C-alpha cells in the first residue's frame, strides 16, 4: 500500500498538515491494532498444517463454528426484518414516545455486554419473567441455541436500524407516490420500490450485525450454557477456554478462522458502501 498524492507527482496540498496527520494515524493504527493482530497471524505460522487442521477439526471446534455462524446468521436475518420495521416506523410515522423509542434502539451499544448477558440469561431462565411462561408451553430459551440467537438479536438490532434509518429518511416519498399513482398497493410498492432502494443499507446492516454476532462474547456466554454436548459453545467461548488452559496454539488457530471471517465481512460491507457512494454520487 502506498500513500501518495492522487493526482500527478507534484499536486500541492493546500491544507497544511498532511504528513503529520498521516504519520500519526499510521503510527496509532499500527501500534495499537495492526501489529497486535499480525502477532496472532505470526504465532499461527509456528503451527504445522497438520497441527492446525487437527485443532480446527476437533469436534468441539467444528461444532462451535456451526453454532456461532448458524446462530449469527439467523439472528442477523431476524434483525433485518425487525430492523426494517423499526426504521420504517421511526421514519414514516409520528406517535407518542417516538423519540424515546428512537433513543432506546441504542441501548445495546450503551449497555455493557456482560450486564446484557446476565440479564437475558436470568429473564429467559426457567424461573425468569419470560422463561417461566415459555417453559410452560415447552420452549426453553436459556442454555439452548434459542438463547444464543436471542442474545445476538439483542446485540445486533441497532446496526440494522441505524444503517437503514438514514437511507429511508432520505428516500423521496415521491417514489412510492409514483408507484401508488400507478395503482400499486402499499405492500407492493414497498417490496418493488422501497426495498430495492434499501438493499445496500440492509446488506451493510446485515453484515455488521453478523460480524458482531460472530464475535460476540459477553452477552452470549451466560445464556448459552456452554455445553459441549449440546453444542451450545460459541467460538469466542472456545478461544477463551483455550486461553484459560494456556492452550495458545488452539486459541490462535480458532481465532485465525474467526479473524478471516471478520475481515471477509468487513470487506463485504466496505465494498457495498463504496459502491453505494459511487451510485449516489452519480445522481
Amino acid at each position, binding site marked *: 500500500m502506498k500513500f501518495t498524492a492522487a*493526482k*500527478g507527482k*507534484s*499536486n*500541492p496540498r*493546500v491544507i497544511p498538515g498532511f504528513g503529520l496527520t498521516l504519520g500519526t494515524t499510521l503510527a496509532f493504527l499500527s501500534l495499537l491494532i495492526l501489529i497486535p493482530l499480525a502477532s496472532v497471524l505470526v504465532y499461527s505460522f509456528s503451527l504445522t498444517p497438520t497441527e492446525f487442521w487437527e485443532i480446527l477439526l476437533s469436534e468441539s471446534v467444528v461444532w462451535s463454528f456451526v453454532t456461532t455462524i448458524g446462530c449469527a446468521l439467523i439472528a442477523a436475518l431476524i434483525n433485518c426484518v425487525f430492523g426494517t420495521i423499526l426504521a420504517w416506523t421511526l421514519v414514516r410515522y409520528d406517535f407518542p414516545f417516538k423519540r424515546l423509542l428512537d433513543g432506546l434502539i441504542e441501548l445495546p451499544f450503551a449497555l455493557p455486554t456482560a450486564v446484557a448477558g446476565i440479564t437475558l440469561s436470568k429473564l429467559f431462565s426457567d424461573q425468569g419473567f419470560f422463561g417461566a411462561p415459555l417453559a410452560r408451553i415447552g420452549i426453553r430459551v436459556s442454555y439452548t441455541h434459542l438463547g444464543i440467537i436471542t442474545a445476538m438479536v439483542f446485540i445486533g438490532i441497532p446496526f440494522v436500524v441505524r444503517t437503514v434509518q438514514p437511507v429511508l429518511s432520505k428516500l423521496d416519498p415521491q417514489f412510492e407516490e409514483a408507484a401508488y399513482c400507478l395503482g400499486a398497493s402499499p405492500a407492493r410498492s414497498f417490496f418493488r420500490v422501497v426495498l430495492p432502494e434499501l438493499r445496500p443499507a440492509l446488506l451493510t446492516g446485515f453484515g455488521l450485525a453478523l460480524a458482531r454476532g460472530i464475535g460476540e462474547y459477553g452477552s452470549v456466554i451466560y445464556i448459552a450454557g456452554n455445553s459441549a454436548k449440546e453444542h451450545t459453545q460459541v467460538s469466542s467461548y472456545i478461544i477463551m477456554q483455550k486461553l484459560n488452559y494456556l492452550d495458545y496454539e488452539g486459541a490462535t488457530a480458532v481465532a485465525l478462522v474467526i479473524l478471516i471471517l471478520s475481515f471477509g465481512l468487513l470487506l463485504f460491507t466496505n465494498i457495498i458502501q463504496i459502491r453505494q457512494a459511487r451510485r449516489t454520487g452519480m445522481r
Partner: protein
Amino acid sequence: MYVEVREINKTFGDFKASDHVSFGIEKGKLAALLGPSGSGKTTILRIIAGLESADSGDVLINGKTVNRLSPSERGIGFVFQSYALFRYMTVAENIAFGLKVKKQPADKIKERVAELIGLTDLTGLEKRYPNELSGGQRQRVAFARALAPEPGLLLLDEPFAAIDAKVRKELRQWLREMIHKVGITSIFVTHDQDEAVEVADQIMVMDKGRIEQTGVPYEIYKEPKTAFVAGFVGNPVILESFEGLKGFEKGEFTRAIIRPEFVEAFKSDNPHFKDIIPFAQEGVIRDILFRGSSLELKIDVGGVLLTTHRSLERRPVEVGEKMNVIIYRLYAIQGNETKLLENQDLKKIDPDNKRMESYLYGDGGYFTT
C-alpha cells in the same frame, strides 16, 4: 502583462484538462475564462491559484514565475464558487481572518475591515453570521474577504453561480464597477456568455482544454475565429447544409452558423423591402416563442429551420404564415476555420452595405417597427 500563463499542460488520467494554454492579462483588467462545463476553465484558474499544479508550463504574476510558490505566497485573493465563508465567524471576523494570520496590528486590521465593509456596502451587517445573509450579501463578504490582504490578483470561480437569476444581473454590474474602482487585476470563470460579455474587459474562450480565442468581448462576438467560438456565442443556429440558401455559394464549406440578427423576415406588402424582394426566399413560420422584449420566430426555409427575432412593435404574425426571408450574412465553417460570408445578391445592389444598414435601422428594419 501583469499575469502571464505560458504553455500550460495538465492531464487527469486520460483527460486532457489543459492543452498548451497561454494568455496574458494587463494590469487592472478584468478577464473572463469562458467555456462549457468540462472545457478546463476552472482547472486553469486553480493552476493560477496554486490549488492545482500543471504538468508543464509557467504561471507569471507581475513578472515573477510563481510555479513553486504555495497559494498563500502568490499574493492572490480567491473567491470560491460556494464562497467558503467561515460559518462560525461573523462578517467582520471573516474579512479580518486573512489579516490576522498575517499578524497585522489590531488597529490596522480594524481600519481595513471598516474600509472594506464600507466599500462593499455591508455596513450594519458586521456582527451577522454567513447563514443570516442573502446570497448577494454573501458574495460581497467573500469579495471583501479576498480583497482584505490587498492581493495583486483576484480570482473568482463562477462568482454568480450560487445566486438566483434576478439578483445576478445587478451583481454583475456591481462586481464590474467594484473591480475597476479597486483597480485590481481579476480573472473569473463562467459558462455564461452574457455574463462574460457584460462584465469582462477581455475574454478567453476555452473548449476541450484549449484556448479557442482571446479578445475583447466585441471581437469575440463579431469576429469569431474558430467554428467553436462562432457556435458558442450569440445563440446561433448551426446548419449542416446551406445549399438551398439564396445569395450564398457553398463551395468547400461544410457547415454554416447563422445568428438570429443575420436573418430578416418580412411580409410581401412591406414597402421598405420592395427593392430586395427578388432576393428573398419564401419561408413558413413553424413556431413563435415569446422572449419578453421580442419574439423569436422559427422559420422553415426550404427545409432549413432558421431563427430570427422580431420586435413586438411590428405587425403580429402567426404560426403557418408565409414570410419573405433574407439572410444578410453567415459564418461558413470548414474544419475549425470560420469565414464570414456576405449575401452575394445583396452585395451586387449594395456593395458597401449601406442599404442593408438602412434596412436594419431604418423604418421597418430590424431594430425598429
